[in-house]
C-alpha cells in the first residue's frame, strides 16, 4: 500500500481547496486499481497484462450544477486545477439548468473495510497461475479424446485485482477500503462434423484472493461443460414452440433479474439520465408500490453478501450499503438510488452509487441481484409439467432500451415431458415482455438450489464495467410462448 497514504494527503488538500473556493459540496475519491491478467489459449500462454489506475476523482456541487474532474497527475498544482475546473464546469452547467441538483442528506461515517486475501497475487506467482490453467486445458484434451469429440478452441482469462479507495466529502465522511477480486472467463468451442460449432462463455468472480480458485472446482466444471457442449451438438433436437411451461435455471434467472428488474429500477434511468446511452425505463416513479409480478418471486439486490463479486460496505458516495427488495410479494418495492435521485424521490439513498475507477463519476449500479429462494425442490418444479422446456443456461440475450422486451436463447436446455427431463433441445427462444415474465412465475426453487454467476455490467458514459453477481434458484413460468 506504499504511496496510498501520500495520496490521502493530497485528497485532504483537494477538499480544502474546494471548500475555500466555495463549493457547496465536494467529494474526493482516491482510487488505486491494480490488475494482473493472463490469457491461456489452447494450452499456451497468449499474453500477460498488468494494469493500474491510480488517481483522484473530484465531484462538486456548485451553483446548481454538478461537476466532475479527475487527474492522475498527483501534484498540488494539478489537483488545484482539477478542483477549479470541476467548479467552473458545475457553475456553467448550473446556469443551463432549470432546477438545481441537490443531494439527499446522509450520515457521514468514518470507517474502514479491509478484506485480506488468503492467497494474494504475490503468493501465487504468474507461473503457478499458468500451470493451474494449463492443467485444466490438459484435462479438456483428455476429455476430448475420451468423447471422441473436438474442442478446437479453449480460452481462459484469469484476472486478480485489488481496489484500494479513500473517500472524503464535505459532509465529514471518511472511508477507506481494500478489496481483492478474482475473475475467470472461459470460452470453450466444440465442433462436430456437419452440425458445426457450439460455444459457451463461463464467468466466475468473487471478492477474494486466489484461494477461491480451488473452491470453484474448475476442473469438474469445465469437464462438465465440454461433455454438455458435445452432447448438445450430437443429441439436441428442435424445441417445441407455442404456449408451454418453462423452467429457468439459475443462470437464466440471474440474467433475467439483472436485465428486467435491476436495470429498470435504477432511479437514474427512470429519471432519464442515461437516455442517450443505455436508455430509460418502462418503470415510472408512479409505479412504486404497484403490482409487477405474480407474488411468487421476491427480487433482491444486496451488496453486503460476503465475498460476492458485487460486494461493498459503503458505496462511492459514502453511504452504508444494505439489502434492497426491488420486488416484494409481486409489488414494486424500492428503486436503486444515489444521493441525487434519493433527493428527487424524497427518500434516503440506498447506497447504489459505484465508480469503477478514479476517473469515473459514481453512478447507480446493481451489486448482487437475485430471486430470493422459495420452497420448491427441483423435482417439484418439474413434476406437474406435462410438456415444457427447462432452459438451464443461455447463450445470446438482449433487451430493449426501456427494459420491456427481452430475449434469452437457451444453450443447455431440456424437454420436460410428464414431469421428467427427457432430452436435450437446441436453442429454445424465450422472447417476452417484463410484466409477462414476472407475472408468469408460479414456483421458485429452494435455498439449496440458489446459485450466482459473475458478470461485468456495462453502463455510463464513459462506460464503466462493474463487477456484479446475478442469480437465483430455478423458477417456473406457466404458459409462456416459446418460439422465435
Amino acid at each position, binding site marked *: 500500500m506504499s504511496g496510498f497514504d501520500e495520496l490521502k494527503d493530497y485528497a485532504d488538500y483537494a477538499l480544502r481547496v474546494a471548500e475555500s473556493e466555495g463549493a457547496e459540496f465536494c467529494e474526493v475519491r482516491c482510487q488505486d486499481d491494480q490488475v494482473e491478467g493472463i490469457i491461456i489459449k489452447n494450452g499456451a500462454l497468449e499474453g500477460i497484462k498488468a494494469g493500474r489506475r491510480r488517481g483522484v476523482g473530484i465531484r462538486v456541487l456548485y451553483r446548481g450544477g454538478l461537476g466532475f474532474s479527475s487527474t492522475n497527475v498527483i501534484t498540488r498544482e494539478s489537483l488545484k486545477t482539477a478542483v477549479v475546473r470541476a467548479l467552473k464546469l458545475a457553475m456553467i452547467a448550473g446556469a443551463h439548468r432549470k432546477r438545481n441538483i441537490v443531494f439527499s442528506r446522509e450520515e457521514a461515517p468514518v470507517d474502514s473495510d479491509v478484506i485480506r486475501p488468503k492467497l494474494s497475487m504475490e503468493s501465487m506467482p504468474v507461473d503457478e497461475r499458468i500451470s493451474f490453467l494449463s492443467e485444466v486445458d490438459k484435462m479438456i484434451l483428455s476429455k476430448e479424446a475420451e468423447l471422441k469429440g473436438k474442442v478446437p478452441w479453449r480460452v481462459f482469462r484469469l484476472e486478480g485485482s485489488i481496489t484500494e479507495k479513500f473517500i472524503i466529502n464535505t459532509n465529514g465522511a471518511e472511508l477507506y477500503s481494500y478489496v481483492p477480486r478474482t475473475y475467470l472467463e472461459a470460452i470453450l468451442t466444440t465442433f462436430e462434423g456437419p452440425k458445426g460449432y457450439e460455444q459457451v462463455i463461463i464467468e466466475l468472480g468473487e471478492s477474494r484472493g486466489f484461494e477461491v480458485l480451488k473452491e470453484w472446482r474448475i476442473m469438474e466444471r469445465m469437464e462438465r461443460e465440454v461433455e454438455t457442449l458435445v452432447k448438445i451438438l450430437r443429441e439436441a433436437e428442435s424445441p417445441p414452440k407455442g404456449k408451454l411451461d418453462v423452467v429457468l435455471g439459475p443462470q437464466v434467472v440471474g440474467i433475467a433479474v439483472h436485465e428486467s428488474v435491476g436495470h429498470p429500477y435504477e432511479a437514474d434511468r427512470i429519471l432519464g439520465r442515461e437516455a442517450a446511452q443505455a436508455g430509460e425505463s418502462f418503470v415510472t416513479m408512479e409505479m412504486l408500490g404497484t403490482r409487477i409480478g405474480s407474488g411468487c418471486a421476491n427480487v433482491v439486490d444486496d451488496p453486503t453478501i460476503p465475498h460476492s463479486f458485487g460486494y461493498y460496505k459503503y458505496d462511492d458516495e459514502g453511504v452504508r450499503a444494505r439489502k434492497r427488495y426491488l420486488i416484494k410479494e409481486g409489488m414494486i418495492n424500492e428503486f436503486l438510488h444515489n444521493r441525487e435521485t434519493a433527493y428527487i424521490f424524497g427518500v434516503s439513498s440506498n447506497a447504489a452509487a459505484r465508480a469503477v475507477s478514479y476517473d469515473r463519476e459514481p453512478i447507480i449500479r446493481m451489486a448482487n441481484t437475485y430471486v430470493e429462494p422459495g420452497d420448491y425442490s427441483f423435482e417439484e418444479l418439474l413434476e406437474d409439467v406435462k410438456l415444457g422446456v427447462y432452459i438451464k443456461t443461455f447463450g445470446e440475450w438482449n433487451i430493449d432500451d426501456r427494459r420491456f422486451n427481452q430475449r434469452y436463447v437457451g444453450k443447455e436446455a431440456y424437454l420436460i415431458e410428464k414431469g421428467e427431463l427427457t432430452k436435450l433441445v437446441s436453442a429454445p427462444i424465450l422472447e417476452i415482455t417484463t410484466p409477462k415474465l414476472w407475472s408468469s412465475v408460479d414456483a421458485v426453487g429452494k435455498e439449496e438450489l440458489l446459485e450466482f454467476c459473475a458478470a461485468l455490467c456495462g453502463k455510463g*458514459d464513459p462506460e464503466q464495467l462493474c463487477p456484479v453477481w446475478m442469480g437465483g434458484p430455478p423458477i417456473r413460468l406457466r404458459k409462456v410462448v416459446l418460439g422465435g
Partner: protein
Amino acid sequence: MENWMKPMDLAKRTVDLGRRAGVDDVICVVIDSERRQIRFANNQITVSKAWFDRTVKLYVAKDRRIITSEEKVSDYESLSLSLKRMVENVKLLREIPGYTSIPKGPFRYPSTNLYYDKRVVSDEDKLFESVEVAINSAIENGGCRVSGVLIAECFTRTLVSTGGIEVEEKGTRIAMTVRAFADEKGEAQGMGVTVSRRIDGIDPEGAGKEAGQIARDMLKTVKAEPGTYDAVLGPYFVANLLSYCAYLFSAFFVDMGVSPFVGKLGQRIASEKITVIDDPHLPDGYNSHIFDDEGYPTQRNFLIKEGVLKTYVHNGITAKKFGVNRTGNAGWEMPLPWNIVIREGDRRTEELIEDLQEGFYFLNTWYTRFQNYITGDFSTIPRDGIFYVKNGEIVGSVRGVRVAGNIIKLFEDINGVSREIKQVYWWETPVPVLSSTISVRGIKVTKAYGA
C-alpha cells in the same frame, strides 16, 4: 509524486531503464489526454466533466517471453517500479508460441493531413453553446425531451522502443450524440450523431434536427406482424453492426475461435456490392492515427473487397502466426481496426426506400449479441427510428421489434448501398464507422410474447 516529465523524456528514460536491465525489447507508449464531457437529459445538463491524465503502456520482452502493462500512473518513480517488477516477472514466464520481435525502425510515417484543433477542449463556452443549440434544434423539430452527450479530447501519443523508434503524434476529436423523445413514454425516439476532429466540424443543429424529426415521425404507429421482410438499414444501424464486426476482424479473436470470419480468408462473405476498408488516415477520422502500438506505420487495409474477405487485422505476433505481414493495427494483445469505412454505393437513400415493396426501414440498433460467434447467429434491437414501408412509402412506425439472423447471411443479402456516407461514433459504436445506408433482402423480424 511531484515529478512531471514531458512524454518523450519519460518514454525515453523508461526504455533506457529497461534496456539497462538487460531485456531484449521495450516499448513505452505515453498518452497525455485532456478531455471534456457534457451530458444532458430532459433538456438540461446533468453533469460536466473534465479529465487530465497520463496513460503509460509498457511492453517488455526477454528470451521470447512478453509481459505488458497499461497504467494510469503519471510519475516516473511508480513507473520505474512497475518496469522493474515486469523485468523480474518476465523471466518467470513461458515462451510465447509464435513470438516475433518488435519492428525495427525508424520508419517513414504516412504524411497525412489529420485535422487538429485544440479548441475542442479549450473553448468551453462553445462546447456548452453547442449543447444548447442541439437541444433547441431537437425541440424545434419535434422532440419534447432531449438527451445526449458531447465528448471532446486533445491528446499527445508518444512511442519509444528499443527497435529504434521515437515517434509522437498529436490529435483532437469531438463527438456529439443527441437523442430525442417525442412522447412521454419514450417510445417515439430519434437519434442524431455528429463527429469530427475540429470544433467547427460538428453540426449540433443538424444532429438535434435529425433526432427531433425521427422522434416526431415515430409518433404515428402501425401494426406489423413478425416475419421475414426486406429492409433498409440506416447508417447508425449499419455502423453498430460493423463496430461489433471490428472485433471479429481482429486476428486475435479469429485465433480464439470467436469470429464468424474464421477460415474464410479469400472467400466471398458478403454481396459483391460491399467493400469495407480500415482507413487510419481519414483527415477528419475520429480514430485516425499514423502509428500503431508497436510503432509500425498504419496503413489502409481492405477488409472486404467486393464481397471477398481480404485480411484480418494484425499485430506482429498474430501476423507471424498467420504467416502474413503486419497490417499496422497493433494493440499488443488485440489488434483492432482504426476507422471502418464502407465504400459508398450508387443509390440515394430515398431510392433504396422506394424500392421496398413491403418491409422495414431501421435507422439505428443496439444490444447486438451473438448466440455463437463462429456461426455468426445473432439478434439486435432496433431503436431510434423503426418504420414500416409499403409500396416504397413509409406508412408509420412500429414498436417493440427485434432483428434476428446470421451476420454472414445478412452481408450476403445486401442488394444496395447508398452514396451518402456519414461518420458514426457513439456509445454503442465504439469503433468509428464511415457508414452508409444499405438495403437487404429477407431479414427476420420478431416480437416479444406479451407485447
